[in-house]
């Protein structure tokens, strides 16, 4: 018999927090769906099949956004971050494993991962600190050309070449931005646009770095492992791009960890403060210029590293790889994925890069389509596919 002053357990104690926080299922389903879709997209060759897939994906995307499926997905992802990071990595590895013998598919996957790394750099600059960078491709190119020169003319270990690529890009960025730090934001925009446009023409005119003919770049070697040789597993020779896919995944993960920690710290919070209200930030002691330069340099280091690996992977670079349009693609990816949200980068990059590579019909039209997509996003959903969430410094299971 229950006494009147003792309520049944279910009413007196609050429900355990995991019952209120969303379960991980929507997120797992989402990640698996994206991975499967990407794999199918990469394996299929028929143009009509690809077109259908593309249209289906676009419709599914719009429906998912409208019905709130994307926010459920993201909510679940955020609530179980540790688990979901593991699931995402596993999904990437699975995709890479399935495509292990396909050169072109793995090249695309590696390129997507490199673009993700570069876009994370851009996110630190633009998404966190509000520093405009319309020359992403130029800094990517700076890293690439550094790798080309160091790889061909020095015996520097390639991991250091990778870092050097990042450092050169970072240095170049600081030289570019320092003069205009005291001026208003649109001056920085002008400088990066001008740099982005002129980087390519400068390289083409100048023959010291190969001119318009470009430069050959030796393949990457890490601790004696030459990535340009396909691995032989169980008698089966894999594509050598398999090696690069693994390396680019590792780089993306490393940069992701740093970016995440940066955001979830006082530094990340100060970046946001500078972006949102510079004046108020300065009256509370924030060194606005140091923060902007810091964000710009850190971002460019990431972009440069990605460029260095890109050069070593493709074996040959020329100025046309690093033109203004490519800079705009990088911006398009972070706008579409959700500005300031690193989790939006991979799906956005995959969607933006894979489809035009496979669908010959739209390849020529891809910049037109990118610009239209960004315009639509800016008009109707400026937060992007996965809007950025509030800062949680140390998210624990279901908490923050």
């Amino acid at each position, binding site marked *: 018999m229950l006494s009147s002053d003792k309520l049944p357990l279910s009413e007196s104690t609050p429900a355990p927090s995991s019952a209120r926080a969303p379960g991980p299922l929507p997120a797992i389903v989402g990640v698996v769906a994206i991975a499967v879709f990407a794999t199918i997209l990469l394996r299929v060759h028929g143009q009509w099949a690809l077109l259908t897939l593309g249209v289906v994906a676009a419709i599914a995307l719009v429906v998912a956004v409208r019905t709130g499926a994307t926010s459920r997905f993201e909510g679940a992802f955020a609530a179980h971050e540790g688990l979901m990071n593991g699931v995402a990595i596993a999904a990437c590895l699975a995709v890479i494993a399935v495509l292990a013998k396909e050169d072109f598919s793995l090249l695309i996957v590696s390129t997507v991962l490199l673009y993700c790394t570069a876009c994370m750099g851009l996110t630190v600059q633009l998404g966190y600190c509000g520093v405009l960078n319309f020359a992403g491709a130029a800094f990517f190119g700076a890293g690439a050309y550094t790798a080309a020169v160091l790889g061909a003319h020095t015996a520097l270990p390639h991991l250091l070449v990778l870092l050097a690529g990042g450092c050169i890009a970072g240095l170049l960025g600081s030289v570019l931005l320092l*003069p205009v730090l005291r001026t208003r934001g649109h001056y920085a925009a002008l400088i990066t646009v001008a740099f982005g446009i002129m980087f390519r023409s400068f390289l083409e005119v100048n023959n010291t770095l190969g001119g318009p003919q470009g430069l050959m770049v030796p393949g990457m070697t890490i601790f004696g492992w030459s990535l340009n040789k396909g691995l032989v597993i169980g008698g089966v020779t894999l594509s050598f791009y398999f090696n690069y896919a693994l390396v680019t995944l590792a780089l993306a993960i490393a940069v992701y960890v740093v970016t995440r920690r940066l955001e979830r710290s006082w530094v990340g919070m100060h970046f946001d403060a500078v972006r949102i209200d510079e004046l108020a930030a300065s009256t509370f002691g924030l060194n606005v210029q140091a923060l902007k330069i810091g964000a710009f340099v850190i971002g460019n280091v990431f972009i440069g590293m990605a460029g260095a690996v890109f050069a070593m992977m493709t074996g040959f670079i020329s100025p046309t790889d690093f033109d203004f349009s490519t800079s705009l693609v990088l911006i398009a990816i972070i*706008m579409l994925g959700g500005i300031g949200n690193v989790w939006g980068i991979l799906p956005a990059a995959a969607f933006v890069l894979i489809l035009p590579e496979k669908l010959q019909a739209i390849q020529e039209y891809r910049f037109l389509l990118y610009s239209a997509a960004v315009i639509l996003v800016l008009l109707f959903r400026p937060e992007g596919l996965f809007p950025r969430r509030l800062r949680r410094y140390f998210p624990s299971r279901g908490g923050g």
Partner: protein
Amino acid sequence: MDIGFLAQYVLSGVMLGVVYAMVAVGFTLYFGVLDVINFSHGDVLTSGAFVSLATYLGLRAMGIESPAVLLAVMLLAGLGAMALLGVLVAKFFVLPLRHAPPFITLLITLMVGVALRESIRLFYPSGSNPQSFPAVLPNTPYHWGHLIVRLDTIILIVTGLAVIALVNLFINRTRAGLAIRAVAQDGETAKIMGINFEWVVLLAFALGSALAALAGVMNGLYYNEINFGTGLMLGIIGFCAAVVGGLGNIYGAILGGFLFALLQTIVVVATPSLTAYKDVFAFAVIILLMVVKPTGLIGEASSERV
């Protein structure tokens, strides 16, 4: 180096300056009225040139030969179409976003520019190749000693300067111009005073775009060639010129335009082997100027309420 040779460069420098100044004035109008950087401006220039070219080809196909008629209709079509385009860009892409952070407007206009540029490249017949632009202006050469000057160059320069002066007059001496200046100084108060804010913005965009179209046609007439990518670089240069003069300041824009042309001409004349670097050089100097005078040579026209 004889005077004739030098004078040739001076003339082409002035011509460049006129074009840059026209583009820069457009940027100034947009910034003044809405505090926005409109990065589609350069591509509007190209579009105007292409519309004029297409009009010309259409008229010729219809058998019309008279240069005066051709030029008149070309200009009408180019300027009219771009004025309309400017209004559309303002109404659908810029005005709706005017309360968003400024970089959003920058980005959307940049993308509109890309869309225009790509559309020309993809949909105009052999759009990725340079198109020859007709010489509808009389190009009889005049000789003064060693100096050879084509009549069309003179006409273009005079027209350009006249147009800039007219725009200046319009802004400073007419009621519509006054409305533009009022909105530029304080949009909220202007609204309270009964000025139709939206109309003024659309007018400013129409005017700026028509100017760009005219600059595009003039550019085409001068070089006898247009290219889908011309506008991008001209837009950057025009923006740069507007900035160095002081954003929002028409005189600054004009000054900036001629300054940029001067810098480029200096490189070409003094170090001919480095001609390819003329843009880089001019930009570098401009950046240095901005470091020294962050609000521009004549001064930027905006303030923030604390």
